[in-house]
């Protein structure tokens, strides 16, 4: 397993494979027991994940799940409290130059200098980056009809997002990280943005990681998903494979317990006398007699895992009640 070799590499801190493209394993991002605490609250905890090279990955989860924290740890804006994060084999905080040169980042609300013209922003990118591709960015913005001499503050939200994307792409990054890039955009601008992103990802060798709390739009742009909830990673993998591994079973309520007993049930719901189970398959589909089976949508899977994580947290809170201090600490975190 590639995972195993990577784990051994992680423990060997002297092994820096910074110049190879993620090393022989083809890994863009790797985190190990990564956690970040603000004061006494954990924003991200025990996060272990691997993002292979070339994936266009969606990081989904509810607001406050720790998505922004994870992305900030990846681009080196924050330092881990515990654990480690490596981007192309380098630690973003310890080797910022190595990582920053290869990573394009669009922060939440795509911050730009509002008083700068679009042209000024492009100059900024050219002056601050060793690798810079001016013409593509300009052509892209011109195609979208964004005037280069206009002040950034005078552009619409969608146009500002496009300028921020153009800036990040002009770095010719090996990894593009976007924090809620479409959250503040109207549906049309959202579609245009994701199309531009998809085009860029298709024409370049770039790994993309974008966070979102809106699941609907992601399937068209992303092939990989990381589900983050309650500051922990719940599920990660190729969307197609994940959909293939899950089924929605619907059948009589009376048999529900018996059906669920032999299966990995992620979520169960009742509608009158009907039970709906979202199960994870261990092998080929084995539909119980009299039950309906269908492939769930990505949204259904995501919501099921998010629901399960809340349940998991509730259980944990119950067991921790015996220790008042810990229970209080945890409930505060759940509230967050």
């Amino acid at each position, binding site marked *: 397993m590639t995972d195993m070799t990577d784990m051994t590499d992680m423990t060997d801190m002297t092994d820096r494979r910074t110049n190879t493209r993620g090393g022989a394993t083809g890994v863009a991002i790797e985190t190990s027991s990564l956690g970040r605490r603000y004061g006494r609250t954990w924003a991200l905890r025990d996060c272990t994940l691997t993002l292979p090279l070339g994936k266009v990955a969606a990081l989904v989860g509810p607001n406050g799940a720790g998505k922004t924290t994870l992305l900030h740890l990846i681009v080196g804006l924050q330092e881990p409290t515990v654990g480690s994060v490596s981007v192309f084999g380098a630690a973003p905080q310890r080797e*910022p130059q190595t990582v*920053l040169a290869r990573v394009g980042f669009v922060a939440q609300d795509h*911050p730009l*200098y509002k008083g700068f013209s679009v042209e000024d922003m492009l100059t900024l990118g050219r002056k*601050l980056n060793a690798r810079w591709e001016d013409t593509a960015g300009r052509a892209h913005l011109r195609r979208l009809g964004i005037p280069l001499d206009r002040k950034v503050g005078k552009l619409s939200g969608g146009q500002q997002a496009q300028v921020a994307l153009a800036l990040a792409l002009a770095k010719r990054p090996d990894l593009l990280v976007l924090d809620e890039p479409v959250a503040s955009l109207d549906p049309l601008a959202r579609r245009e943005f994701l199309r531009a992103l998809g085009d860029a990802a298709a024409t370049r060798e770039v790994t993309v990681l974008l966070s979102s709390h809106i699941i609907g739009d992601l399937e068209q742009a992303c092939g990989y998903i990381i589900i983050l909830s309650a500051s922990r990673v719940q599920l990660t993998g190729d969307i197609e494979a994940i959909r293939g591994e899950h089924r929605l079973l619907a059948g009589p309520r009376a048999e529900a317990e018996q059906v669920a007993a032999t299966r990995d049930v992620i979520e169960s719901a009742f509608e009158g006398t009907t039970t709906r189970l979202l199960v994870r398959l261990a092998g080929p589909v084995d539909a119980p007699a009299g039950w309906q089976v269908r492939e769930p949508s990505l949204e259904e899977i995501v919501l099921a895992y998010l629901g399960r994580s809340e349940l998991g947290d509730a259980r944990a809170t119950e067991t921790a009640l015996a220790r008042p201090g810990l229970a209080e600490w945890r409930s505060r975190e759940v509230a967050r």
Partner: protein
Amino acid sequence: MIWLTWRQHRGEALVIGTTLAALAILLIVTGREIYNSYTQLGVAACLANTSTLNPNCGTVINTFVDQFGFLHAAVPWLNLVPLLVAMLVGAPLVARELEGGTHRMVWTQGVTRLRWLAVKLALVIAGCLLAEGVMIAVLTWWGGPFTRLSGSFSTDAFDLEGTVPLAYMAFALAVAVASGTLLRRALPAMALTMALFMGVRLPVDTWIRPHYQAPITRNFDLVSGESLDRQDWVIDSGFIDSQGRSVDFTALINACDPNLLGEDKLTLIQCAQGHGFQGRVVYQPANRLATFQAIETALYMAMTAGLLGLTVFWVRRRVS
């Protein structure tokens, strides 16, 4: 980075440059008049040779001071220049980025945030020091006649000559940048900058500076009077009785005849001297000026270095 620093601060540079030019013109125009008057009234001649004092010298100096004293009295307000510049330029330097979230954009370009901070600080501080230096140069020329009258050691002159004004500027900027980084908001950072800058400068001026070196205390005959240099910095002066205790003027009157108060002052002084009273002056001699400038400069530069170190620490570790 140089381009970005200029692009972000060119507006402020324009404001500071224009104000500086206006101030310089004002100083040059009034300065020429001061120098003309200084020569024409004969103040220079009076100061040149104190042993053969022109009996009119008192009047001459008074006339000169009456003519331009109001301008000279306005000059200490220029001590606020570093504070104002720091509030305008320094407080928003990091805080504005944090307020707008743009630090996440600019710190994830190809330049590390430490380099970003280093270049911005270096250029902004250098630019502000240049402006302050030009102002101080013009001001030192302008105040030349006054300096020859009362020296460079008095609080009015000391603060606006030599290297200390540059140290104040660097210190003010460091206070402002650190405040902005700590508070993450430009407006509260401006308020904190004002409080900290005044909170350091006023106590240092009043209580700490007089003790950089132990001041000299000298007792003198009341009748012959003290013979201090014009350039010496008198920190305190008063009277002592025959036991050497500090007393005020009423003690002299009470010891003699209270009725003498309205009479000839010389009679009173002779009487007081007869009772063993002496004058006492506490001062720093003029030849210590360079040392005092160096000590105060070093003091402010040390605080500047400390604050910039804190800023670097906060930007590296705490802010994201």
